[in-house]
């Protein structure tokens, strides 16, 4: 937003030989380089590319090429290291969401089992789509990249299918009865236990979405031809299609979520009794206010909705994902809603908030969410910013009233800032939301 060149240089820096492991892994953080954070690097590269293209009129294709080559290595690391059963369903561990599960997802999986993660899989679905989008964008200038686009298209299809469907070696993460995606615990005896925690883990499936306009597809005849063949092949074999084609404008739509499931997921996400808070989407549904527990191997594991402080000592620093609002995840949800809207348009609308009777298209939902997130920092009628919680000095003292802090996360009911008070890097992304709505 302020300095695209600097952003690009930083993104390239992370892919340099002295950051990326020769095996393709990107370090997670200083305390444990070998831990795994969500694979958002490709997404970031695309955001910066698109932002610059929109502003200056031309995109930096060389930058995309540069990062694409390195990301290929990192993508392959994920595929080879974090898909235990080779079923396109991914693990990954804590994936940045410290205490969101009933146990520490990086360690101590109870019962000697392993966790097939809905979010790990969703992130990888998104990663495939990011790589596909990059390849297609580069292919507009360099046709040799058309080939690899097909690879990521097909890879995405496999992931989408795995997440949604019961295969011979996998029960699927979607719970039809409850209309939500869950992590699945695989036990050594072959039994699968769904962990029915309604959280961002399930909502993260929304992130993987991509719309390819017909005009762009028409410029890539080879890719289009292969895509048609693949589509026909799957149709002939009775497989889930994943790919949607718009009857009017002909755009192609790839997402992890079939339309009917999308409606059910959004129904939960936009429900004030579940995820929708005055300050954005919560990390955990409020339905868990009275707790959730599950028996695994004779032990009871549980959690409950905790909108502010967390009572567990799972990770240091008490980063609480059991209810509070986290800006970066909300930002990604908003970005995803924009992309869905590109395909579904104004004809598709959902209730916002759920139960209000007020219907909105997804663009309007995205804007309404943005406004809620921005409102956390804004002065209300009495000059009080929700972010400041009980600190009245910010509302009452002229030497405080225009000062704004960007906290780590926000109370799930009140919007009060919690944790680090200068988490400028990710909470500061609210600047982009203000810029877009302004």
């Amino acid at each position, binding site marked *: 937003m302020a300095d695209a060149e600097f952003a690009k240089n930083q993104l390239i820096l992370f892919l340099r030989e002295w950051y990326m492991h020769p095996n393709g892994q990107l370090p997670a953080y200083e*305390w444990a380089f070998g831990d795994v954070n969500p694979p958002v690097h490709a997404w970031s590269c695309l955001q910066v590319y698109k932002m610059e293209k929109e502003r200056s009129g031309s995109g930096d294709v060389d930058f995309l090429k540069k990062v694409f080559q390195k990301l290929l290595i990192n993508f392959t690391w994920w595929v080879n290291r974090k898909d235990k059963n080779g079923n396109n369903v991914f693990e990954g561990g804590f994936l940045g969401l410290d205490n969101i599960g009933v146990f520490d997802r990086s360690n101590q999986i109870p019962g000697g089992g392993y966790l097939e993660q809905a979010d790990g899989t969703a992130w990888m679905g998104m990663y495939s789509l990011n790589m596909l989008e990059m390849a297609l964008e580069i292919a507009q200038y360099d046709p040799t990249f058309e080939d690899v686009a097909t690879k990521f298209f097909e890879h995405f299809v496999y992931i989408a299918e795995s997440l949604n469907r019961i295969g011979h070696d996998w029960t699927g993460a979607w719970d039809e009865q409850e209309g939500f995606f869950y992590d699945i615990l695989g036990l050594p005896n072959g039994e699968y236990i769904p962990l029915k925690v309604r959280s961002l883990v399930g909502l993260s499936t929304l992130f993987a979405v991509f719309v390819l306009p017909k005009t762009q597809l028409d410029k890539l005849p080879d890719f289009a031809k292969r895509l048609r063949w693949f589509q026909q092949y799957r149709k002939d074999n009775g497989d889930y299609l994943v790919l949607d084609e718009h009857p009017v404008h002909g755009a192609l739509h790839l997402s992890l979520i079939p339309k009917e499931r999308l409606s059910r997921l959004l129904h939960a996400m936009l429900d004030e009794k579940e995820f929708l808070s005055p300050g954005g989407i919560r990390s955990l549904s409020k339905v868990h206010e009275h707790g959730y527990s599950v028996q695994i191997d004779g032990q009871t594991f549980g959690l409950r909705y905790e909108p502010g*402080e967390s009572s567990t000592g799972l990770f240091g620093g008490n980063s609480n994902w059991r209810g509070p609002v986290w800006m970066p995840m909300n930002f990604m949800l908003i970005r995803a809603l924009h992309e869905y809207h590109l395909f579904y348009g104004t004809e598709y609308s959902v209730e916002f908030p759920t139960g209000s009777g007020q219907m909105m298209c997804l663009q309007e939902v995205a804007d309404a969410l943005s406004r809620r997130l921005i409102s956390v920092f804004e002065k209300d009628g009495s000059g009080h910013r929700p972010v400041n919680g009980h600190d009245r000095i910010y509302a009452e003292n002229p030497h405080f009233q225009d000062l704004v802090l960007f906290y780590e996360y926000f109370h799930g009911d009140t919007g009060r800032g919690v944790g680090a008070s200068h988490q400028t890097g990710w909470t500061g992304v609210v600047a982009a939301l*203000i810029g877009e709505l302004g």
Partner: protein
Amino acid sequence: MKNTVENNRLQEHYSNKKHWLHWGPYLSERQWGTVREDYSPGGTAWDSFPHDHARSRVYRWGEDGIAGISDEWQRLCFAVALWNGKDPIIKERLFGLTGSEGNHGEDVKELYYYLDNTPTHSYMKHLYKYPQAEFPYEQLVRENARRGREQPEYELLDTGIFDGDRYWDVFTEYAKADKNDLLIKITVHNRAPEAAELHLLPTLWFRNLWSFGLMNQKPVIRLQSSDGLKPSDDYRSLVLNHEKMGDYFFYFRQPEHLLFTENENNSERLWGQPNSSVFVKDAFHTALTTNNFEFLEGKTEGTKFSPMYRFTVEAGGSAVFQFRLSGQAVKTPFGKNFDKTFDDRKKEADEFYDSITLSNREQITGIRQAGTDNDQQNILRQALAGMLWSKQYYNIDMPRWLDGDPGQLPPPEERKKAVTTTGVPSTTRTSFPCRTNGNTPGTPPGTSLSIVCRWRWRTPNLQKIS
């Protein structure tokens, strides 16, 4: 998009015409308690380099300070230090709790704000709120330890120390007259209903690379003896010499004391080993808190320097201090151009932010549409200022970090095991070097800068590791 002056500077920088990003807010707020500085056997980073050591102990991988800047390789640093005459230590760096000291223990317990910054750091503004009463160090530690996890943190505001407005607003501003010519303005407001006294120590220092075999020659900050002697001179100056940077010059008004020392360990305080000289890292702290300046008198060069100003400001009043750090000698460092440069850079910052936030129509006509929300623009500006202020110099050379430096005691062997069990890939030692330091030949400029949260980032606790 309108082509603003700031955009032109960016253009110059990225087309390699002028290296505008050489200086910036790259100084961290906390180098103590980081994994990089941890040389303990068990990977207990918070305990092995606590805040209490920071004023006396040399850092290996980076530096820290308040509202500070450095060059992109963090060879030379500048930051603001303060003393209210009551604290047990001078305020050279922000205070916070370690991981185990309370709920959100890793958080800073201070009030400070990033008010403005531009991508080339042509203009920067920072605010630190410094209490006039004794800073409640012990109270913060004690009360946070007492509270459980489910209770909110006990913050500085909760101590009541800002009640009655008995505090200083310390605004630090920077404006670049040129890529290596930085004008510095520190404005101190007494918000209290009565007069109060403050000690201001704008501090310049070199990062200690000489003790680790990373430099041939120790750099030096030297007083220019000719300045300030003629009645017409209204300023003093220093020349700073560093083998990789060449000469820099620093200009300041005559202070009450000229303090020089060395950026060296106070081994006596830290480890009970005798010091080879009294000129150690915490010498200024010792001089102020014991009101003994004698042992520093007569020293006119070193690797750490501060002009010390002691002054009283009436209730509601303010005082302004000017400084200048330049890669070239300047004839009239504090002439009329000083304020004009600040005005220009501030205006250019406004134009730059207007260019990225207002609609084309608003930019062309210069008229803001009804509904352009000033409060939202303020939020946006501070959000981006925070990101730009968060650029920090980050340097770790893994093989060297594991094996230690030549001429130094080798780190304990157990440390290597502690590292392996954290889950670092087993090839760590040979092929996971985060080699971003300045002494790597051929490293392109700027690679050492990373945007990370200045205070803390995701840090799973260490208990599970050991």
